[in-house]
């Protein structure tokens, strides 16, 4: 691959990850609907995962698996496995966080009959 194209990819992958993260954070901060806040957090998590995995990528590396093809082949470069293990944990925990957040949303809707943050804040308990 051309090195100039690869340079562009450099900005592309990091830029996309940061942009998606910021879009999700914007949604979580600005939107009034509680479900939209949870969606924003989920989008932000996706961008963050992409950022961490992209940090561990090595040019020309293969996946960190010692298969027969790798052991007999000539390419001896592997990408960094540590960020991948980190993101593996983060995705599973992120699902648990989303499930608990959504159950809180259902419970709030059962109690107040609305999901708008302002209306929920104005009600007296």
């Amino acid at each position, binding site marked *: 691959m051309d090195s100039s194209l690869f340079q562009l990819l450099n900005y592309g992958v990091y830029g996309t990850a*940061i942009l998606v993260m910021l879009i999700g954070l914007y949604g979580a901060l600005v939107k009034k609907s509680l479900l939209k806040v949870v969606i924003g957090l989920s989008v932000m998590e996706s961008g963050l995962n992409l950022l961490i995995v992209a940090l561990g990528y090595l040019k020309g590396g293969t996946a960190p698996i010692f298969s027969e093809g790798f052991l007999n082949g000539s390419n001896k470069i592997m990408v960094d496995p540590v960020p991948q293990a980190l993101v593996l944990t983060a995705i599973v925990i992120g699902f648990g966080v989303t499930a608990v957040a959504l159950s809180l949303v259902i419970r709030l809707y059962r109690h107040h009959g609305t999901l708008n943050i302002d209306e929920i804040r104005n009600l007296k308990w």
Partner: protein
Amino acid sequence: MKKVIVILLLAALGFYLGTTFFNIGFGDPHFANGVKDFYLKETVDNLHVSNTVTSIVVNFRGFDTLGEVTVLFLAVTALGSILYKRRHEVGTRSVLFSSSSVVTAGSKLLFPAVILLGVYVFVHGHLSPGGGFQGGVIIATGFLLMLLSYENYSVSHKWLSIVESLAGIVFAGVGLLGFINGGTFLQNFLPTGVLNNLFSGGVIPIIYIAVGFKVAAELTGVIYTVLHEKGVK
């Protein structure tokens, strides 16, 4: 006004992150290579595990994985207590619909294949991509398929909790056996075998199979609880 403040804040954050990461560079060996080289060398030389991510998750950071599984268990418990219902409300499904016969027959055919794929993924976790978490999630997806196609398909809560507890006991028990035999928690005490064989890697396949069962039971419980929640109409 609030929007303007938020956009300014995000622009500052984006500028900071952008300058930081564009200086690091994509695809360059910028981390301290000692950590990575140690993990790779130790994995292939001493543990005889093919998949390095598996060996990091289960062996080098096995205690971390035990905590992660516990967090998932806590999430299931929190879900059940938040969506608590009184006795007379139990038993009604919120999402009621009748699936067409094509969907029901297809999912009945597909269900064993999905379960088999999940079991394959977590049994071969130390050889190929995949492992306990992935296999468990695939199995939970199979149960989701059945719950969505059949209105009155039900999963026994008792069996879910039994499977989950047994898998947790196996995980902690293997860790304690390592403590007795080797001196540290989750120490490997079985022969590690030959690289790229099914029976290799010592205790890693056992732990990953336990994690697979535990994750499958927990996520099936999450889906079942949320699916049986009845909203205010």
